């Protein structure tokens, strides 16, 4: 399952603090191209904070400081001359709760290309992105309806389509199914397998079965520390660390 692949994104000794409180402690984690990497761990273990640092979404939270570096394509995205906007154009994100803009379905998907001045072939772009997100068939007849009328699962796939419209290289997903029902969850998991042909995915989840089902590599975090990282199969069947074993076998958490 895990053929050799390039490292596309890498956290090197990353520590993140909210004011005085360390939320992520010296984490080093590689992310392989065209693979799904999942980050698991109990609530408050710092997994979402780490994920948000991969496309500098923590910039918007007051008093957050980061040490170490995150390299993307061998460039440090936290370098002084790095542009967070350019970073996010390449590294998209899908959030815990679906957050479509209060606009039409079409406008949601077309939004990112539009602000980037890509005006030609917009219909194709929107169709392409919606198809990739496996939403096209359900919405093709009502592209100009409000996105807020879609069901939760559809909204989340719309958010995925919205993120795909600019063809990012990486898609970060922060517990994308936690607000969805099991059927919608299954659809999104299926979608992940198709998407990894095109891009690289990092997914944070507190659902261990989900991590085991979808990901190629898994990282287990606890109290801000990366306890163990490895191929998903190894981590779930033969963990090296005792804490990992207790967590994946459900003895705590």
């Amino acid at each position, binding site marked *: 399952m895990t053929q050799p692949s390039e490292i596309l994104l890498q956290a090197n000794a990353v520590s993140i603090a909210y004011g005085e409180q360390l939320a992520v402690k010296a984490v080093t984690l590689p992310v392989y191209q065209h693979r799904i990497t999942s980050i698991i761990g109990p609530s408050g273990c710092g997994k979402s904070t780490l994920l948000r640092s991969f*496309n500098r*979404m923590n910039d*918007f939270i*007051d008093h957050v400081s980061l040490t170490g570096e995150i390299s993307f394509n061998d460039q440090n995205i936290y370098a002084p001359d790095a542009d967070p*906007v*350019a*970073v*996010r*154009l*390449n590294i*998209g*994100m899908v*959030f815990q*709760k679906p*957050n*479509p*803009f*209060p*606009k039409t379905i079409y406008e949601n998907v077309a*939004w*990112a290309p539009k*602000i*980037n001045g890509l005006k030609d072939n917009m219909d194709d772009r929107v169709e392409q992105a919606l198809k990739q997100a496996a939403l096209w068939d359900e919405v093709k007849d009502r592209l100009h309806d409000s996105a807020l009328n879609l069901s939760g699962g559809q909204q989340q796939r719309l*958010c995925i389509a*919205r*993120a795909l419209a*600019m063809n990012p290289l990486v898609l970060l997903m922060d517990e994308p199914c936690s607000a969805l029902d099991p059927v919608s969850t299954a659809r999104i998991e299926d979608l992940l397998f198709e998407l990894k042909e095109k891009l690289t995915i990092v997914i944070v989840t507190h659902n261990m079965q989900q991590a085991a089902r979808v990901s190629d590599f898994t990282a287990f975090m606890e109290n801000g520390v990366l306890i163990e990282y490895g191929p998903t199969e190894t981590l779930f069947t033969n963990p090296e660390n005792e804490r990992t074993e207790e967590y994946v076998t459900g003895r705590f958490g």
Partner: protein
Amino acid sequence: MSQTAPEIRLTRARSRPLEKVLRWLFFACAAISVLTTLAVVGVLSVETFYFFQQVPASDFLFGTRWTPLLEPKSYGILPLLFGTTLIVIGAAIVALPVGLACAIYLSEYAGNRTRDLVKPILEILAGIPTIVYGFFAITFVTPSLRTLIPSTEVFNAASAGIVVGIMVLPMVASLCDDALRAVPNALRDGAYSLGATSFEVTARIVVPASLSGIFAAFVLAISRAIGETMAVTLAAGATPNLTLNPLESIQTMTAYIVQVSLGDTPAGTLSYQTLFAVGAVLFAMTLVLNLIANAIMNRYRDVYE
């Protein structure tokens, strides 16, 4: 010897007259607000009714000369409406863009420390009595205008309009700030994660999402500007003037009401009744605007809850 249980009564021991009296007393207090509205509507409509028995409504609403205190008397309210309109336009040009920009700065850019500094300053601005703004118009804004544009008259609509704009600015800023901050952060996150700049997030997502709240703030600001009295009485003049030139002296509805009350006009005369007729127009206009603003605000509150 067996103990008998003490008697337990679940019916009312006494009728508690105090509770009843108090309830009615409190209700009476709340009803005073309704009585106030009735008084306002009643007084204005009765006197206006007498006024219309002597002056045809069409003369009042469409007449172009307003000279109720001079001979020949004429009762066309249009000059006063034009005066008020000029003030509203001036105030809107100052208060709406500046207020919205302030709100955007506070809500989208300022850190908590800056907010804690700027918000009280806006509150101070909002708490300064209108007479002080009138003084500011006369002693600072008008002289400055006359230096810039020498043809400006001593009393002019522009100066009063600018000052009324400054006066309603804090309200616009604070209401727009509320509207912008009601937009959930998830929307901002979504937009930023797509590689948008702060301007794109603000102008294309946050402002459109809070448009109804911003619009309500604008309507309320206009309503306030229409009802503003002291600054326009002091700075805009007392010449009912059918003009759209902001550098000329004009008279607003409010300034006319003050002018009549400054003279000793006997009750029951036609000039006394003009006060109520103009007051009724003023009241109707602000009431309609306030109702519109409240309706818009109630609707947008529902969106994100």
